[in-house]
């Protein structure tokens, strides 16, 4: 199912949970206009690398943001493992967009869980990747940095919630899944998912309402 109750494609473009609008992303506009999700899945399953690249661009940012919340220091590494598993299993995958997203985030959740279990047995302090040091400069480096910082700040604010609340909010808001899909991925009941999301939002609202110096003292 498409995010937010199955928004139908507009002019051949499916709703993107990342952009919040129907239509192509800023990259590879011509390819995007030709693709739809099921078609890209079929082509990628047969080894079409452009179709895989399209799928990756559609899903990777949300995956990375989800992993920044549930597997923060190792989000990039976990994402790479998840995509490798996707690439290996894509030929045997059957289903459409909702099944693919459920598969992707179920794999990510399992990997993140394994990483947390491993980290608890083998304590090791991971450091973040270097920010933009090895990235080529864009036309507007300052604007890109501000954009990235704003996104990161928002994700860190959500990640300060208890993990199950943060996970549910990310899956619902960033990935665009509904309650039933989130419940399926997290293994909880839909009612528990709804309650966790509401409690998390109330906590966030309370933190935003608190004076700047007291924000971290709000009870979770």
């Amino acid at each position, binding site marked *: 199912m498409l995010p*937010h109750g199955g928004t139908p494609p507009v002019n051949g473009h499916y709703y993107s*949970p*990342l*952009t*919040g609008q129907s239509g192509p*992303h*800023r*990259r590879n506009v011509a390819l995007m206009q030709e693709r739809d999700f099921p078609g890209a899945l079929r082509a*990628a399953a047969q*080894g079409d*690398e452009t179709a*895989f*690249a399209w799928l*990756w*661009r559609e899903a*990777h*940012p949300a995956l*990375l*943001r989800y992993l920044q919340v549930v597997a923060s220091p190792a989000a990039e590494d976990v994402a*790479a493992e998840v*995509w*490798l598993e996707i*690439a*290996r299993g*894509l*030929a045997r995958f059957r289903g459409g967009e909702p099944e693919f997203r459920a598969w992707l985030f179920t794999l990510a959740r399992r990997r993140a869980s394994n990483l947390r279990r491993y980290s608890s047995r083998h304590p090791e302090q991971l450091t973040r990747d270097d920010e*933009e040091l090895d*990235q080529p400069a*864009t036309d507007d480096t300052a*604007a*890109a940095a*501000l*954009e*990235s*910082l*704003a*996104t990161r*700040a*928002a*994700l860190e*604010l*959500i990640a300060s919630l208890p993990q199950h609340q943060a996970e549910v*909010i*990310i899956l*619902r*808001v*960033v990935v*665009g899944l509904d309650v039933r899909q989130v419940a399926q991925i997290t293994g909880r009941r839909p009612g528990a998912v709804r309650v966790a*999301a*509401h409690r998390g*939002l*109330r906590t*966030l*609202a*309370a933190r*935003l*309402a*608190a*004076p*700047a110096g007291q924000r971290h003292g709000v009870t979770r």
Partner: protein
Amino acid sequence: MSGSGASPSEMSHFPRRLLRRPLGAAAAEELLARRGAAPGAPASQQALARVLEIAAGPPTGRELADEAAYVAAFVLATSPAGTRRAALPRVLRTFAQLTLAVAAAVLAVGAAAALTGRLPAHAQEVAHTILGVPAPHHTSRLQPVTGISPGHQPHPSGVPAVLPVPGAPPGGTAARPPKPAAVMPSPPAQTAVYPKIPPVRAHPEIPGAP
């Protein structure tokens, strides 16, 4: 996406009364659906809607920077060489499953044969010892002496005498001449002696009886 809009730090300038109105379930669902806060919503909810909007914003350049590396990894993983490497564990898994199936079948057939006493003598003895299945039907090579002739002297060590092993080297207990009668006494010859039946006499009260 730009970082404009109501930043969290700006929210502290709003009156506390407006900021601390509780977030209802309907308003929370609106925020989760990314439909934003209602026009008259408290400023904290407006700020929260902005935070969620930023978190779900369009992909940044950094998030999409590794596309080429991921596509290369996909090509490698789906290439014939990569497929062969990935297929190897599947072959091993299939082989292991076949081996397990054959082993299970052999065990089942062996157990059935042991229960019915159709194993070779030695194997049946082992199964009898370990599993308690019926003992082999024929005599074993080591069998305690069941009948001792009057002239037989018990072994000084107290170990019961055993049957001499055919082909064993001379010396020791095996060197003694076999005494089949002592080992397996043949049953006494049955002579056909039957009790003598008295002759039938005529019954005095039954007419016509012999």
